[in-house]
């Protein structure tokens, strides 16, 4: 094996290095919170920067680990999302007793996701998945004094274990049917017998749990509500993004011979997911729960894009997730600032926000418009491209249902806009000051939301990368 191929693991090595630096700082114990947080931000910035240069494609460890330009780009997106989450939770982290652990756990989970995305083998995939899940369960409980946090962590770990078990059962059936864990070997052997279909359904269920596809979504709202906001943001953006990236790889390469089977599975679950997510989002009063259900609905759209099964499908999913990172993290950023300064988390608390905190209200509104797919925000393009990719199959009932769902989702996003801009309140919020760190995060998000649709090279670039999975 050529050592230079280790460069293919550059992202993973970088993260590991950062984890070790933080670990030594923790053991050393002399650095105070301010220093740790500064150094962590610096390291995350460097990590993001290094991700853009000198990427090597190839396979190492007998195809266990793969690296392609598309994977590098996807990892860059996740690095960026992690950085934004870290920046925007400054207010919450500042006085936390276990600050270094937060970053260590967060990055371990990210490391697991990277391995999972790059895996070329079911075992490697499973290893990455577990590495990403277990630190997340610990993170859910990071508000140590809150009961609701412990509850969330408990639910998270139990449901994860359950879904892993189902996934493992699917993997073992695949191994039984094909005699291999290697994606490529499996691809060449799969024919679509009943046993293989059963295995596919089990593996799909495992994915569906992580992506909170209905009917595997029930853990989502409770875990989102109970976890600290930074963790909720990480769960809803980074975790989902990584799952959908590997999901595409698995569907488009490993299970390609069963394309008709998984198309119908995807189309059906997409419809149910959109409808259920939207209907439940209508009734939520807590913003974190609200975003949980709205993210379920978004996954429904994502599944439509994936079902397109073409290069456009891959490109539109990656493009959508890039935009979703910016828009959803802007919303979580606002919620995080307001929640950590005032403890308020319900929609009715946001009444009159524009009068007291115009900047926060505007950022929130922009991100909600982007989530709802309203131009000129980038979400408009993201969502429409997903639908266009899905429509290439010419399954019109699916596209019609998806389009009509846009109306429902607009209604609940507008509810929050109405609370912030139109409703008046007797107890307005005080003027909140947030630090430069959060401002930087907000700036990145707003710039992304407003500009991505008009930088015409972005989609083309992603499309170019998507030619090799």
């Amino acid at each position, binding site marked *: 094996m050529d050592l230079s191929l280790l460069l293919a693991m550059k992202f993973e090595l970088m993260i590991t290095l950062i984890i070790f630096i933080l670990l030594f700082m923790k053991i050393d114990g002399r650095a105070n919170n301010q220093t740790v947080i500064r150094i962590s931000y610096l390291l995350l910035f460097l990590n993001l920067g290094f991700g853009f240069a000198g990427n090597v494609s190839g396979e190492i460890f007998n195809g266990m680990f793969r690296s392609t330009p598309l994977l590098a780009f996807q990892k860059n997106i996740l690095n960026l999302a992690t950085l934004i989450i870290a920046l925007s939770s400054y207010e919450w982290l500042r006085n936390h007793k276990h600050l270094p652990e937060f970053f260590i756990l967060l990055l371990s989970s990210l490391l697991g996701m990277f391995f999972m995305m790059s895996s070329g083998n079911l075992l490697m995939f499973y290893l990455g998945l577990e590495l990403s899940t277990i630190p997340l369960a610990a993170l859910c409980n990071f508000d140590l004094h809150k009961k609701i946090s412990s509850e969330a962590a408990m639910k998270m770990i139990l449901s994860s274990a359950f879904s892993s078990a189902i996934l493992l059962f699917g993997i073992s059936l695949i191994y039984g049917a094909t005699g291999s864990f290697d994606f490529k070997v499996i691809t060449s052997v799969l024919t679509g017998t009943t046993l293989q279909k059963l295995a596919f359904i089990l593996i799909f269920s495992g994915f569906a749990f992580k992506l909170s596809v209905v009917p595997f979504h029930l853990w989502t709202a409770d875990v989102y509500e109970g976890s600290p906001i930074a963790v909720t943001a990480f769960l809803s953006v980074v975790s989902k993004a990584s799952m959908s990236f590997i999901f595409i790889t698995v569907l488009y390469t490993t299970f390609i011979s069963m394309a008709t089977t998984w198309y119908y599975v995807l189309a059906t679950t997409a419809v149910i997911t959109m409808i259920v997510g939207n209907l439940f989002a209508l009734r939520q009063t807590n913003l974190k729960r609200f975003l949980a259900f709205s993210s379920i609905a978004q996954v429904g759209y994502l599944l439509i894009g994936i079902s397109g099964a073409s*290069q*456009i499908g891959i*490109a539109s999913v990656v493009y959508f997730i890039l935009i979703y990172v910016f828009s959803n993290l802007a919303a979580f950023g606002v919620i995080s600032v307001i929640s950590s300064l005032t403890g308020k988390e319900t929609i009715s608390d946001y009444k009159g926000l524009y009068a007291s905190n115009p900047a926060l209200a505007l950022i929130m509104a922009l991100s909600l*418009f982007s989530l709802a797919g*309203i*131009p*000129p925000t980038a979400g*408009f*393009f993201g969502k*429409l*491209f997903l*639908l*266009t990719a899905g*429509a*290439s199959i*010419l399954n*019109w009932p699916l*596209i*019609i249902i998806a*389009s*009509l769902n*846009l*109306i429902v989702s*607009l*209604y609940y996003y*507008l509810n929050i*806009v*109405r609370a912030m*801009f*139109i409703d008046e309140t007797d107890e307005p919020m005080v003027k909140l000051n947030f630090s430069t760190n959060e401002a930087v995060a907000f700036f990145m998000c707003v710039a992304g939301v407003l500009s991505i649709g008009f930088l*015409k090279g972005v*989609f*083309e670039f992603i*499309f170019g990368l998507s030619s090799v999975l």
Partner: protein
Amino acid sequence: MNLSQLVILPLFAAVLILICRNANQVKRVALAAAVGQLILTICLLFAYCNERHAGNTDQMLFQYNTMWFAPLNIHYHVGVDGISVAMILLTASVVLAGILISWKIEKLSKEFFFLLMLLSSGAYGFFISLDLFAMFFFLEIAVIPKYLLIGIWGSGKKEYSATKLALMLMGGSALVFVGLLGVYFYNGTPTFDLLELSKTHIPVGVQSFFFPFLFLGFGIFGALFPFHTWVPDGHSSAPTAASMFLAGISMKLGGYGCLRVATYLMPEGAHEYQGIIILLASIAILYGSFATMMQTDLKYINAYSSVSHCGFVLLGIGMLTQTAIIGAVMQMVSHGLMTALFFAAIGMLYERTHTRAVEQMGGILKLTPFIGTVFFIAGLCSLGLPGFSGFAAEMTVFMGSWQNADMWYRLATIAACASIVVTAVYILRALGKVMMGPIQDELHIGITDAGWNEKLAAVLLIAGIVIIGVAPLFLQHLLTPGVEAIMQNVMRSGI
């Protein structure tokens, strides 16, 4: 001439407004932008006429085409023909009048003018787009500003109306998008380009499936019965300038889309659904005018009469004869100016009397002669008095409709004609009650007549109405080449 200026200027003004320090600066920037925009559109009109005189017979002039999203073959493609030029002129006039009318707005004036600028930018973009994706982008850009304008500055049950409007228009957009995807994928190489698509023959089966999506989707914007219900609530809750914009321009986006996209690209589909379109349009015309008779709120009167008047637009399009379609476009322009004038007059009155109820007013003409006169002109134009634009437009629609020899369609034409009588009833009754007679309320005696800004706005709109009314041929000549191109496609399908 660079058409993108039309979109960029309002956007630029909107950004400028954001960095203004006080309300006065905001107003000046908005006014300057609107005046500049009007000058620009008049230049566009002259440039367009020049090109045509010079013998340029291209269907679309001043085209500019650049790639936007290459993998999906989405372009930013703009260009104008006579129809778009007329709609752009209408937009510029109504926006300028709307800004003048809102001169005294105090609550959050910065945000108000910012949203108005964003709205107008979307409308310009919509009218110049030749790529359906870009057109859809501009169509949707306007939904949220409308929602906020009604929700924040509106009156009455504003939250209900604003939500209703946003959701119904979003529903329209959703249907339109499904229709657009159908057009996109059933072309040999997927494309959203209007001109390319108009040359290809979309299979008839595809047309009969997707035509309803496009027509209904755009129809919701254009108050197609039974999806007109956002119009009365939205218009009457909105602040004056927003009502003017909604009725004057927004509803025209629907009519324009029905014509330019649905009918132009899918003529066979239009033939197939002709009966239903004409039926719905006739119902809208009659139902709208009868419903107006029951209203006691001036804004509701104008809103329901808008439903009736916009029915003429859809009726003209549905008849599929050249004269009727020209009439439909003329009706769009005429109704846009007239209804904006009407809403402006109602706004002026409401600001002074703080009521819009017909029975609480009387003898206003004696107190404020200018506002009274504006009211009369708007009313008389609405009931189709010769000399004003309403007559020229409606007459053309009727003549064109009669050319369609089908007996049932002629019956529909007759029914639509009959609505003019009803229009006369409600307009004259409202005018008589509000303007003439004894003064109803002692408090009204002290009210002042229109200020300079209001006079200017009214004069601008009245000028448009009278010019079209006195010299309708000019507008007809402007529209004819564009309509002919559409008719070519319609004839191709063979009546």
